[in-house]
């Protein structure tokens, strides 16, 4: 087909250009026909070729061959055209297919989009359906309450009663409203709190500014306190420190202070020691003990593996740890009328759970001069046997035995001089009671019940020892100090006199006498009384609990031979005269004259003995050494012919008992 293209040129001429468009031709031709044509053409060609061949082989005319060539060429052209057409058809077909495909693709795409969108929408829908609105988590007030409380513009009952959605919305509104209100309140309260806080701070500052002022006042008031003897400051400080005391010491402090306030103004209690250490101790008491035992175990293990030589050192350390004292200690002072003071220092051994005591005596006057009295105020033995048989050498806590075995301590007595004496009365004052089943409780009542008695005994002990000290210094000067209240026990004239007063040791005493009445804790003395050629040796046993327990005298006389209380009845009677009659000899309370009265009576008895001895004989011997000066009713009585040793006052004669 020909098409006309109109080409516009510059000189505006319109040319017609004819274009041959074969494609349009395609639509008109039938492919089947074309195919037949092709077959025909091919057949013609084949035929012509064959003819050419034939002609060529036969040598035919080139015109026919050319004719045939021309026909072949035509056929070739037809074939070419057919080829072209076929190609064109193919192309067209392809194009059509392509187009259709494209159309289908577009549609497919659209479909997919739509499907995708549908899915998306479905998801959205399901999401929406699953959506849990936060409003459901809010606890709303119940509907009744809501309708009751909410104002009408929020609750809108006419709408909300029918419509759930509206109801919920209304309720949410109401909730919001309420919350807003509460938030307001909260803010206000916060603001108030802040204000109050500030006010408190101010006041605190004010108070702390007062503190220095108060301190000054306290300091200034100290002299006033002392003047009025109301030591509040001291007591407060003491109470502060007392909180860190271990329980037994605390009990002792409380009871002693109470007793001092109530009954005995001369008793005072102080706490001494390191408070910080005590605080450190009280902070972790169990830990430290566990640590000790753990570290002990570890150390032991290590040691047995490595070196054996230091086991002793380890043991020593363990012992020291076991015998550790609490850093705080109590000091109790007992003042006596003559100005001397008995200081008692109480310590608490933590691991052994016992109390120990050390003593010190400070006297108003200087107490030197009495050689024999050296032992009397010795702090080691001053408090021996305050109660009978309370020697204070062994620990009264039966559980300690097992502890000692672990660290190889055989007896506590070795450590007593270091650590103090664990007397039973000390434990009782601290409220520690060690009954046989080992129950140990800190008991206030125990301390209270023993306090008074023990304090009295302590004071009595100190006074007795001081009195003895004075008496000894005069005894050593051969003067028997007899007080005026006791003069009535003795006649006016006593000729025998004390010439010597010395101390003896326990071993020397056992040579002199074997009796079951003495023990190692007693004090031993030797007194010598003389008259003329007669010498009376008296071994004296002084129990630590003098003057509750009478001193005992054992006599032996050196005069014309040696006689002793073992062998002669009269000396025995003298011994009983001096040893037995406590009620007469002890003098006025508290009986501190006992020893001196006994010695004086001994002199009197010696006088009687010597003077009546010569009476026995008929007097045919010559001048008697000791003339009779005493008045006696009878000089001998009874089968044992005892002498009259009893002095009767005020008649002044001697008789038998």
């Amino acid at each position, binding site marked *: 087909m020909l098409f006309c293209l109109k080409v516009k040129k510059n000189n505006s001429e319109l040319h017609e250009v004819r274009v041959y468009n074969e494609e349009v031709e395609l639509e008109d031709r039938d492919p089947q026909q074309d195919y037949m044509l092709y077959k025909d053409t091919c057949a013609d060609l084949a035929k012509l070729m064959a003819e050419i061949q034939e002609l060529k082989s036969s040598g035919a005319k080139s015109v026919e061959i050319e004719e045939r060539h021309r026909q072949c060429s035509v056929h070739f052209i037809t074939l070419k055209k057919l080829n072209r057409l076929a190609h064109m058809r193919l192309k067209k077909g392809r194009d059509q297919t392509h187009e259709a495909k494209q159309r289908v693709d577009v549609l497919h795409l659209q479909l997919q989009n739509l499907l995708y969108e549908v899915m998306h929408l479905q998801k959205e829908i399901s999401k929406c359906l699953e959506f849990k609105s936060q409003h459901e988590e809010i606890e709303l007030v119940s509907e009744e309450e809501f309708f009751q409380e909410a104002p009408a513009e929020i609750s809108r009952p006419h709408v909300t009663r029918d419509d759930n959605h509206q109801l919920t919305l209304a309720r949410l509104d109401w909730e919001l409203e309420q919350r807003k209100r509460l938030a307001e309140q909260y803010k206000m309260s916060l603001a108030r709190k802040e204000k109050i806080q500030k006010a408190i701070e101010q006041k605190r500052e004010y108070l702390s500014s007062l503190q220095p002022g108060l301190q000054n006042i306290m300091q200034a008031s100290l002299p006033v306190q002392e003047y009025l003897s109301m030591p509040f400051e001291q007591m407060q400080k003491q109470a502060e420190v007392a909180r860190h005391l271990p329980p037994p010491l605390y009990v002792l402090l409380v009871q002693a202070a109470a007793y001092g306030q109530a009954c005995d103004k001369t008793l005072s209690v102080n706490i001494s020691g390191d408070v910080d250490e005590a605080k450190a101790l009280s902070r972790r008491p169990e830990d430290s003990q566990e640590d000790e035992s753990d570290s002990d175990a570890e150390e032991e293990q290590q040691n047995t593996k490595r070196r054996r030589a230091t086991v002793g050192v380890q043991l020593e350390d363990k012992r020291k740890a076991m015998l550790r004292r609490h850093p705080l200690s109590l000091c109790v002072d007992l003042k006596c009328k003559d100005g001397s003071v008995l200081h008692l220092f109480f310590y608490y051994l933590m691991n052994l759970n016992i109390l120990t005591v050390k003593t010190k005596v400070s006297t108003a006057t200087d107490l030197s001069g009495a050689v024999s009295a050296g032992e009397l105020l010795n702090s080691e033995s001053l408090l021996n046997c305050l109660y009978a048989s309370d020697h204070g050498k062994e620990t009264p806590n039966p559980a300690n035995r097992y502890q000692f075995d672990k660290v190889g301590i055989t007896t506590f007595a070795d450590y007593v001089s270091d650590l103090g004496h664990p007397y039973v009365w000390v434990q009782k004052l601290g409220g520690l009671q060690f009954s046989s089943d080992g129950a140990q409780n800190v008991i206030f009542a125990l301390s209270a019940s023993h306090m008074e008695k023990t304090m009295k005994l302590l004071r009595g002990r100190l006074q007795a020892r001081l009195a003895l000290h004075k008496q000894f210094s005069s005894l050593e000067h051969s003067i028997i100090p007899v007080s005026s209240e006791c003069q009535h026990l003795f006649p006016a004239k006593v000729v025998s006199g004390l010439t010597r007063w010395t101390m003896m040791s326990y071993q020397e005493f056992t040579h002199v006498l074997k009796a079951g009445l003495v023990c190692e804790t007693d004090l031993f003395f030797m007194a010598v009384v003389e008259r003329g050629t007669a010498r009376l040796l008296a071994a004296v046993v002084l129990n630590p609990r003098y003057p509750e327990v009478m001193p005992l005298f054992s006599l032996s006389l050196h005069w014309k031979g040696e006689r002793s209380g073992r062998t002669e009845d009269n000396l025995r009677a003298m011994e009983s005269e001096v040893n037995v009659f406590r009620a007469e000899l002890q003098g006025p309370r508290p009986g501190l004259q006992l020893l001196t009265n006994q010695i004086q009576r001994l002199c009197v008895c010696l006088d009687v003995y010597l003077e009546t001895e010569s009476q*026995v004989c008929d007097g045919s011997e010559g001048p008697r050494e000791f003339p009779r000066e005493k008045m006696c009713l009878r000089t001998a*009585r009874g089968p*044992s012919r005892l002498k009259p040793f009893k002095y009767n006052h005020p008649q002044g004669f001697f008789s038998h008992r």
Partner: protein
Amino acid sequence: MSVFSQSFSPCGRFLAAGNNYGEIALFSLSAALSPDASEGSQKPILNFTAHDGPVFSLLSTDTHLLSAGNGEISAWSWAELIKKFIDLMLFFSIFSQDNSLIVGGGDNNIHIMDMETGIFKSVLKGHTDYIHCLCFKEREEEILSGGEDGAVRIWDSRTNRPVHCIEVFKYEECARPQFGKWISCLATDSDWMLCGGGPSLSLWHLRSMSPTSVFPLPGCQREAVFHQDLIMSVGEGPYVSHCLHGGTVKAQIPCTPSSLNTLALNLKNTEHRVMTVGGSSHQIDVFTNFSYRAFSLSF
């Protein structure tokens, strides 16, 4: 403590001892002598304070125990306790015979009292110093008394008159002037008499009134008894002396107290036939066989 006197009960099963504090203790001999005796059976079963002063003398009658203290005689029923008071100063010896009690006193006289009525029947005067000891001769019914004045007086109990007076210290064999003249022990056995004290212990024949033998005992004797063929005496020195009539000291048995005041023989009871001695000690020695000390009771 010194034990001054002892006395056995009528049945012989108990021993009463008196000490210088005025206490009387009762010991059960049957318990102490039984085979399973323990420490406890040597302690007194009863201990009471009878007098203010020492109990120098104890005497047993059939029903009563008589004790002499300072100024009083007390009679204790062996079953119950009864007291009778007599106010005389000191007594050193009591002796009973047919219901009359013969008391030698510190007032230098001898008093005879009727025990049933408690009335003093008579007084025998003669001594110049207090009386230490008394004894009774049953056959002739004579009372012998020895005193501080060194005289042994013999009295007739029916007529209450002095019969004889022997001043022992005047006899040279017996006299020991270094001790004194007092007579502190007396014992009779029909014709024989023992006396001693300041002078040595001597055996006298009463008919001839002369000493037949003198015993060389060092201390002063405080009590002596006749027992079968022996004479046993105690005094100063921690032993019991066994002597023969001839004048020899056969044995000296040691005992606990350093000097002895009293010796008693329990002859009434054959089961508990013992000798007990007491003196200047709280222990009373018991001799089951008279040759050695068996055990001691403690007062």
